[in-house]
């Protein structure tokens, strides 16, 4: 019953022709207020593709991701997500913010946080149905968050919190996933779980944009964008991740 409207093609049968990019930017400047962080970004991402944004802190990858999510207005140039203004399709685009490990006293259990992923669909008043609950449950199973579903957030380790937030993003059943450092704080098995989740989401036609400073996250990407307050390189991983580009992006060569 969960799976019924799961393949994303059913939600927009007509306006998503296979050639229309899910995300397209031309000569885009992104930044905060009047200060641009990265200028002149052009990219096209199609359904099922994974684009990985790589850079150090302050390189502009989170800023670009926030612009795609509609949280920051584009400073110059054009950007469209699902052929619309970013942020205007909350049910179809899910965003994972960069979460600092929270030791805050928030009285929220892991399962409550995952259930918040349904709010975009439920709005202010609609009651969660059995379908919503099974979507939440399935999302928790996929990231492993089901094992600590009844524990409050404040008692979870950094990795467990990250699995919880990722499950929330999955519970949104969106067509576009914008993930800011989803593997931060995860051990190897956690990273593998994230990679599996991304692969299975892509297999059902979901577009994924992922910001990271870990080159390993780029292995299965369709395209990689190296950022250092400007676009250092953009292209297929083998091409973009040349030693020269990586050195320019990080200031040194990361061991592979």
């Amino acid at each position, binding site marked *: 019953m969960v799976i019924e409207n799961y393949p994303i093609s059913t939600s927009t049968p007509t306006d998503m022709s296979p050639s229309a990019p899910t995300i397209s930017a031309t000569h885009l400047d992104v930044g905060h207020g009047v200060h641009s962080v990265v200028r002149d970004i052009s990219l096209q991402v199609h359904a099922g593709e994974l684009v990985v944004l790589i850079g150090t802190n302050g390189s502009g990858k989170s800023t670009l991701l926030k612009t795609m999510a509609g949280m920051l207005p584009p400073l110059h140039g054009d950007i469209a997500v699902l052929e619309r203004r970013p942020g205007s399709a909350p049910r179809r685009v899910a965003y994972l*913010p960069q*979460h600092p490990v929270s030791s805050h006293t928030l*009285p929220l259990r892991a399962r409550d946080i995952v259930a*918040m992923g349904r*709010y975009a669909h439920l709005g*202010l008043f609609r009651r969660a149905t059995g379908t919503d609950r099974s979507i939440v449950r399935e999302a928790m199973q996929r990231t492993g968050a089901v094992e600590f579903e009844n524990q409050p957030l404040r008692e979870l380790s950094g990795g467990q919190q990250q*699995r919880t937030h990722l499950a929330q993003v999955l519970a949104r059943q969106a067509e576009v996933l914008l993930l800011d450092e989803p593997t931060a704080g995860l051990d190897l*098995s*956690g990273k593998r*779980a994230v990679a599996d989740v991304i692969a299975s989401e892509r297999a059902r036609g979901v577009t994924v944009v992922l910001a990271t400073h870990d080159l390993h996250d780029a292995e299965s990407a369709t395209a990689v964008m190296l950022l250092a307050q400007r676009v250092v390189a953009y292209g297929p991983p083998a091409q973009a991740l040349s030693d020269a580009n990586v050195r320019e992006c990080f200031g040194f060569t990361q061991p592979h």
Partner: protein
Amino acid sequence: MTTSLALLNPLWEPFSRNEFLRNALLGSTLVAIICAIAGTYVVLRGLSFIGDALAHGVIPGIAIALLFGVPGVVGAALGALVMMGGVSLVTSRVRLSSDTAIGLLFVGMLSLGVIITSRSTSFVGDITRILFGELLGVSSTDLAWQVVVLAVVAAIAVVAHRPFVLMSLDDGLARTSGFSVRFFHSLMLTMVAVAVVGSFQLVGTLLVLGLLIAPAATGALLTRRVSTMMLTAAGFGVLSSYLGLLTSYHFDVAAGASIVFTSVYLFVLVAILTIPRRLRGHRELPHQHEHTH
């Protein structure tokens, strides 16, 4: 049987014998519930300081209103509006951290309130009334007003619960879920302002803050769900009202302050009692291994 019950007399007799004390208990119970609802979101979102600012921001409004013979509530509402406008203006236009801006604004508003009331002949009486309320002079009209305020605050909580909870986790989460952060942030401030303005006549502007924060913070320590946090906060607020009034009656001390002091020491008590549990929770973390499917 009768003798053992008689021993408990001091716990309920003050209320059965004195109508003013009954009204005080009813009034402070309503305030406690109002503050539990609003305070839960204030604590979740970390807005305690803004609550503080609002509580002080209303003082000059009340003072001006009293000077011109206008109901204090009208002045308080205007004061809250000015304060909310001031906070958002200063935080968006001036390059100061918001706590500096809010801190300056509320000290400014407080001193303005004192300046205005010092023009009045009954200065000390006025300022004491504003800061600490008149819990022992609660009329049935006051109680009716309290019910209206409770209805407004509860209605806002029902409408905005989801965006409020999303915002307590992350503003971006609320924004990308399709909720306007600007609108719901203003709505949350409005809710706090309504709670403060609606409660100051009973417990005073200074003390309403205690009931806004302390029971909700106690609830946060004891629960793992927002709904139970709110219920726990209401329970501790009502318990504080009762214990505070009882203390006030038997030891002849200020009523409003006794209630707020009770709510704060209950928080401290709970915080101390839950330390072992919280420490245990944190120690266990490194040992828990993570499985993947």
